[in-house]
């Protein structure tokens, strides 16, 4: 059983985790200049507005970087592939990749989001986009 530390959330990032529970991948958007930002924060670094809303990501992107997360002193924990995904919308996200052996992961591979219960916590996950 993989051990997952649930998010603790605060006023700035609660919308993201609420979205995850609804099966939606939400990205924060400045209500003034429409710049997307992640990780979430209260102010738009571009125009300094405190007003924001969210857009729902299509969940498509590419793997920017990845590691196999597997602590050597915890032999019972299932290794997870951790990825940085560059979403099509233009922000980068930390998530996990499922559905292939880690040796087959490549930088730049196309992936799509889905939501899964991982160790009792619903998390955004990614899987390879199959050949069309």
């Amino acid at each position: 059983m993989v051990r997952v530390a649930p998010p603790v959330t605060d006023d700035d990032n609660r919308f993201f985790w609420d979205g995850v529970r609804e099966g939606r991948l939400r990205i924060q958007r400045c209500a003034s200049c429409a710049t997307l930002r992640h990780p979430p924060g209260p102010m738009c670094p571009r125009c300094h507005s405190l007003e924001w809303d969210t857009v729902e990501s299509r969940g498509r992107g590419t793997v920017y970087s990845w590691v196999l997360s597997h602590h050597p002193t915890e032999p019972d924990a299932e290794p997870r592939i951790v990825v940085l995904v560059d979403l099509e919308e233009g922000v980068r996200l930390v998530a996990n990749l499922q559905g292939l052996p880690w040796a087959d992961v490549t930088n730049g591979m196309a992936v799509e989001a889905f939501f899964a219960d991982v160790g009792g916590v619903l998390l955004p996950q990614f899987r390879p986009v199959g050949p069309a």
Partner: protein
Amino acid sequence: MDAVIAGIGHTEYSKNSGRSTLQLAVEASRAAIADAGLTPADIDGSVTFQLDKNDELAVMTNLGIPQLRFSSRTRGGGGGACATVQHAAAAVVSGQARAVLIWRAFNERSRHRFGQPNPRPPDPAWDFYLPFGLDTPAKIYGLQFQRYMHRYGLTNADFGLYTVVARQYAATNPHAWFYKRPITIEDHQASRWIVEPLLRLLDCCQESDGGVALVVVGADRAADLPNPAVRIAGAGASHLQGGDEMFNFYHPDLSTFVEGQTLADDLWAQTGYRPWDMDVALIYENFSPIVFMQLEAFGYCGPGEARDFIASGAIGPGGRIPVNTNGGLLGEGYIHGMNNIVEAVRQVRGTAPNQVAGAERVLVTSGRSGLVLDKP
């Protein structure tokens, strides 16, 4: 007026100190104050890490420091190591303090180990790390190192080239935990994976118990010191937009270390020195690949060239720029980067176990902060 490092002190670097972190802090501090030819009553400023568990009031009460006029803490973890000296120098040069004590002490092996999985986010800034399994620094940094490795076609065995050099230095440094224990690349490749496919055990810094302290005073007092003063020729920090709690996942290109590049520009501008004016470099290494990225950031070789640069012998004994002559944080011990500053002072004083002949100018980096030290 310039500021100088007047005193250095440290405990032994161990895996189980058997005493409190406060005791480690005050033992190291007492040694550094004595090394500076001062008494605790002369100290009127303090700097430590934001992560240090020892309250200033507890440290001063135990040492018998009657009053602190200045105290500050530096941002982040090891990235704030060199910034402690920057804060101290700023306080002394501006007149906010006359003698600043810097310490860092922890039982990072026998008590809270940084390398063990963090069970729950300490605050919401960790919500995009821990739930996904990024629960140790090795994994968090690994996402950057993977990009570097990918871009330049490296393998884990390439990173081991650094570890072999670090352990060679440590083998002849009596302060080092790995004193008299050099390794070969075969040993490196036989060590267990910590983060596949990037880091093996021997790519990781040690987890250590211990304390380190420094004393910074004005250069006008240098002539009165019992030991040679070491001038703080340059001191800087670089925090860039897009950095995050633990690392820089949101920078566009993770195969370069832009904090290091901007810090290098600042240090060379402050001092008028260039990379090859340095006689020795102490380069913070929580993990071996960060040495590669910092060698490139500080201009010792071009992007992607660190592997061949290290393989050429350039950073080893007798090389063009000896690096981490104490064995570094992999070989000597991991006191959050502060022991590398002690080694830099030893090199300028001429008292290092692996002394570089005639060393007068030393670069010290700790990721997001750095120093250039020289002979006044």
